């Protein structure tokens, strides 16, 4: 497949935004149970604003993928069958909830919803945060399933696709949360760095697992099944067009084998190895956490590029020779 930059930005920005929100609410949950100190309203408020900024960036990027962006509202129609439609519904809902979460913190509107028998007070922000967590995971699942549900694209057609979207988004968001905390609440940094290391390690394992899986895939469709002729030697002499078609532009990445070979170790280092090293060092010098986030973001963009480029569409069998 040809990687589209709109989709690369969309998935990486959303991942960071969702991860950051999950990190903030994880912190609040810990604080609720007295495991960490509850931070100021501004801390959660500005953190939510930062998450919202990333989510908005993703939303804007998504419009660049559409031929007719003015009709984008129509895409909420088929949520019963289409994961893309589900994503279109969950994304604004999640953004709304993140906005509300930030608002109730900033304005201190925290009415008590329920008091647990242990005396723990569940206020409005916790309820909104829980709802946001649910939506964040729903959004990860919807985004991952857009790719995982296409059974012809066997590189994507695996539960690992969804798991990796969750883990890589989580890793990106928790590193961002660590950097954010290092700036505004340095005492909390270690908590986020710890979780970021765990999630980044898991994401590394998940991504390597999917690379290993994809390396062993054998194509189901062949020239023989594509045109229904039983012969070991079938060569295309003409695809029926002289100057390329939509099918040659959309489904081939057009880069050399060397480029593909180079980008795999590049993203593995930038998105996983380098951030892990910087996170460990970030425990002592917080500025490195910012470097870790930026480096990993570049690495995740390379990872997403590779994710698309690696998927080999069966339609390519019909479009091999211009002539």
């Amino acid at each position, binding site marked *: 497949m040809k990687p589209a930059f709109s989709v690369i930005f969309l998935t990486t920005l959303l991942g960071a935004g969702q991860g950051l929100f999950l990190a903030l609410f994880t912190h609040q949950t810990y604080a609720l149970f007295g495991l960490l100190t509850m931070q100021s309203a501004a801390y959660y408020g500005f953190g939510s604003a930062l998450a919202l900024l990333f989510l908005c960036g993703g939303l804007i990027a998504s419009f660049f993928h559409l031929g*007719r962006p003015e009709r984008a509202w129509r895409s909420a129609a088929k949520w019963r069958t289409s994961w893309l439609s589900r994503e279109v519904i969950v994304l604004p809902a999640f953004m709304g909830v993140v906005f509300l979460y930030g608002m109730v913190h900033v304005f201190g509107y925290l009415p008590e919803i329920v008091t647990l028998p242990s005396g723990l007070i569940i206020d409005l922000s916790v309820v909104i945060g829980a709802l946001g967590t649910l939506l964040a995971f729903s959004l990860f699942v919807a985004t991952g399933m857009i790719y995982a549900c296409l*059974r012809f694209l066997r590189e994507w057609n695996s539960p690992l696709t969804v798991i990796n979207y969750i883990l890589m988004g989580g890793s990106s968001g928790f590193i961002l949360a660590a950097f954010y905390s290092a700036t505004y609440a340095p005492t909390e940094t270690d908590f986020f760095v710890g979780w970021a290391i765990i999630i980044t390690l898991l994401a590394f394992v998940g991504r390597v697992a999917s690379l290993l899986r994809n390396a062993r895939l054998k194509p189901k469709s062949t020239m023989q099944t594509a045109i229904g002729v039983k012969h070991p030697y*079938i060569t295309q*002499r003409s695809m029926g067009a002289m100057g390329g*078609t939509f099918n040659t532009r959309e489904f081939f990445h057009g880069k050399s084998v060397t480029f593909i070979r180079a980008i795999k170790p590049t993203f593995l280092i930038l998105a996983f190895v380098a951030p892990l090293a910087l996170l460990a060092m970030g425990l002592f010098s917080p500025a490195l956490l910012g470097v870790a986030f930026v480096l990993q973001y570049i690495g995740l963009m390379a990872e997403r590029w590779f994710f698309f480029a690696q998927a080999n569409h069966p*339609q390519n069998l019909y479009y091999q020779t211009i002539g």
Partner: protein
Amino acid sequence: MTQLALVIDLNVCVGCHACVTSCKEWNTSGSAGPLCDERPYEADPTGTFFNRVQTFEIGQYPNSETLHFPKSCLHCEDPPCVPVCPTGASYKRKQDGIVLVDYDKCIGCKYCTWACPYGAREIDEKQKVMKKCTLCVDRIYDMSLPENDRKPSCVKACPTSARLFGDIHDPESVVSLAIREEGGYALMPEWGTQPANHYLPRRKMKLKIHMDELERADNPLKVDGHLPKPAKGESSMDDVSAW
């Protein structure tokens, strides 16, 4: 239930592209607007087509043969492109099984092309909506045309009658008969899409002649001496006596 479809006889197709040009001509002139062409007279022309004729070489020189392979939307009975469409612009008609795109609802996200293993859909780069074969839905039901002309444009154009059109759910239709009796097959059956369009394979006409067919055992010229020869005036009987 009706499922309209094309059956394409690869044994007869000569790769003349008449179906391609006829399809383009009909579908670029309809009420849905033109099928765009870009740089049509330059080095790298490109445009939107519903139908393409591709050419394959089967085997290796000198034992090779050429296969011309017309390819358009197969109007799958279980079309994977339809459920993924977020707007419902892609749909399969209940009454005749044609898979269509509502150009007024399509947002041009291209997700349906990702879900089609056959590469049957092409985006219109000017209108920015997805386009595909409609089985000439604006023609086959047009009562102002003589009944013989109510067929897809490609079918009418084919000079060798390599393209058949009809309802594959009607067991007595010309397409069902062709599929059943001429070995019709579907493309990429491994995905379970159940394409409605079928292809008839290349088949070599071979006449098997046995030696006893070349030399008739009962050749009257060679029965001399084998059968009793009654004397002149005696009675004789066909196949029993020499005369």
